[in-house]
């Protein structure tokens, strides 16, 4: 814990990423310390989701140049599952459906993989049952979701809530929420936000990628960054989000051009 506090949790240096030969990120710099909540805002196509997905190691996103240190370790050299086992969690904008794969089985495999990585024993079925039950009630999610197949036939809102349940189960050190608020009605947004707030603590950090200021009414960020055309063009405190909401993204575009 002490060691982690010394170096930043995440340090992104001049990150350039392309998708299908088109460069999306053009030199992103960002430092995230434990205990912080960062919001990355930006218009459509600015590269917000690309940033979240390339940190998680999604294969289609190729890092052209730059460096990402996660607790001082080269994150980009790790396989996606190794990043996950080290505590990096991505809540997907569009969570995948896994037909026939029971949520219970999936979550247990994920939890056990992380425990094994940390040199811990796999959980017994009974232990896991209890653990799952606790988390389900902690994040206020319909217990039925954990009995079904992973995301299969879920509504958009159910999928997003299921992501928060997974996040609660895996207790990440760095949670990347990729437009988790999009497509949620006000009740779902509240449930999801409360889930995230409950999971916040001084040793973990949250990076929230969003188009709208709305979710920031529920999750107060320490820092707000504005991403335009693959670069962070402005950083500030929570009030920057309000300013953006008022003046719109065109205001930022005009300012930087």
């Amino acid at each position, binding site marked *: 814990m002490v060691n982690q506090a010394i170096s930043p949790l995440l340090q992104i240096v001049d990150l350039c990423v392309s998708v299908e030969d088109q460069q999306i990120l053009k030199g992103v710099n960002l430092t995230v310390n434990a205990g912080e909540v960062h919001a990355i805002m930006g218009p459509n196509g600015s590269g917000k989701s690309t940033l979240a997905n390339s940190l998680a190691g999604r294969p289609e996103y190729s890092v052209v140049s730059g460096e990402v240190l996660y607790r001082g370790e080269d994150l980009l050299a790790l396989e996606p599952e190794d990043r996950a086992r080290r505590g990096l969690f991505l809540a*997907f904008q569009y969570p*995948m459906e*896994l*037909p*026939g*794969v029971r949520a219970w089985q*999936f979550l247990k495999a994920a939890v056990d993989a992380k425990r094994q990585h940390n040199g811990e024993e796999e959980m017994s079925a009974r232990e896991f049952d209890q653990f799952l039950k606790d988390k389900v009630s902690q994040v206020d999610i319909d217990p039925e979701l954990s009995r079904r197949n992973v995301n299969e036939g879920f509504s958009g809102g159910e999928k997003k809530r299921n992501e928060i349940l997974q996040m609660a189960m*895996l207790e990440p050190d760095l949670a990347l929420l990729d437009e988790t608020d999009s497509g949620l009605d006000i009740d779902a947004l509240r449930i999801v936000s409360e889930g995230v707030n409950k999971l916040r603590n001084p040793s973990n950090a949250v990076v929230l990628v969003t188009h709208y200021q709305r979710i920031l009414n529920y999750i107060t960020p320490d820092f707000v960054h504005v991403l335009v055309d693959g670069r962070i063009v402005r950083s500030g405190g929570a009030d920057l989000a309000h300013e953006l909401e008022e003046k719109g993204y065109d205001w930022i575009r005009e300012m930087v051009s």
Partner: protein
Amino acid sequence: MSTQKIISRNTSSDDLASDYKWGFTIDIEEDAAPKGLNEDIVRLISAKKEEPEWLLEWRLKAFRHWMRQNFEEPSWAHLSHPVIDFQDIHYYAAPKTKEDGPKSLDEVDPELIEAFNKLGIPLDEQKKMTGVAVDAVLDSVSVATTYQDMLEKSGIIFCSMSEAVKNHPELVRKYLGSVVPYTDNFYASLNSAVFSDGSFAYIPKGVRCPIELMTYFRINAEESGQFERTLIVAEEASYVSYLEGCTAPMRKSTQLHAAVVELIALDDAEIKYSTLQNWFPGDKEGVGGVYNFVTKRGKAAGRNSKISWTQVETGSAITWKYPSVVLQGDNSVGEFYSVALVNNYQQADTGTKMIHIGKNTKSTIVAKGISAGKAENTYRGLVKINASANGAKNFTQCDSLLIGDQCGAHTVPYIEVKNPTAQMEHEATTSKVSDDQLFYCQQRGIGVEDAHYMIINGFCRGIFQELPFEFAMEASQLLKVSLEGTVG
């Protein structure tokens, strides 16, 4: 055309590289007839088994019918293999036992009991599997049947076919060949002429069989064809769940297996037939393995009767198999649930036939095919709705999963509808494990290989659910073993 003979390849060494863990051989004295097939061999088999005259006559008729087909095997399947030399096979091989056969398990060759122990099928009264009565068949001869006494109390007959011919000739005579006549197809004719043993089950009227009945088939002998015959009769309002497991040692030579299974369900009766087929698939280079040509058919003869086939096919070099249901009784139900997995050089052409004759008959087909390596997998299924089948319904779902770009996955449905009130629907998809699904699993910390197994298992879940619980676990395990090294 190749002149290579599949049965008599060099078998001198046993150094086949394979992960097939059921591949041990056992050293048991075998009583085998000379190679080749003629009327004398048919007579010999019948004599060895001390069969009544009518059965010998039936075998001879079948043999003559088979001979008339002039060694022309069916050629429509999407399969290719060297020509089988039917005169280079032993048509009778049996473990040598004491003169009159074992009267109790104490008299059974301990090597045999040990062989089944190794497979996890203890035959010993003290250790036998709970809730499952097992008929253990080695090289087409029934070795031992557990729980027989207990079953007898409820009037259930569960024994080897040979015993049934001796003790219940009237039942065997009435039903043998009534669903699969000896004229049915090339392999059914051959089986009818030379079948050696198999299982027989009879569930009397109104009886729900309290435990699962299981036959465990094991091929051991070399260069022998395997020809079991299974017959299950469910009288009115009875129920039985029957399981079938199959393994074989690793051999460089291929082995021919041509079995016939007949099921009869009378009014309100239900038969559930589950198979885990794990015959030796051949090694990674496609050497050896079992050629599996099987005719399985059930007749849902009675009103409201139901026949359900569930199969998990992971073994055999060649699989040619179409477990079918003739829906004769009004309101009868037929089901076919299948997972067929092929890897390396395996080839499978498997599916079902649902023949709707009775009114308001209903059939469901769910077939999942998985292809990996250089294997070829074909679903071939017929849904036939006769003019008499008012209100018949069929639903068919065929899904294929391809692993790698060297294999093939084919779907060949035949749909024949002669009744306007019938409703049938067929759906099929072909896909691979998607990169997005894999990444999602990886992002949750699950490794690529485990993620593959998880997704493939999910793909098969609907089928595994139809299996009795222990079998479902085993099936899932089999899938993993069969795919080792192909994913991730």
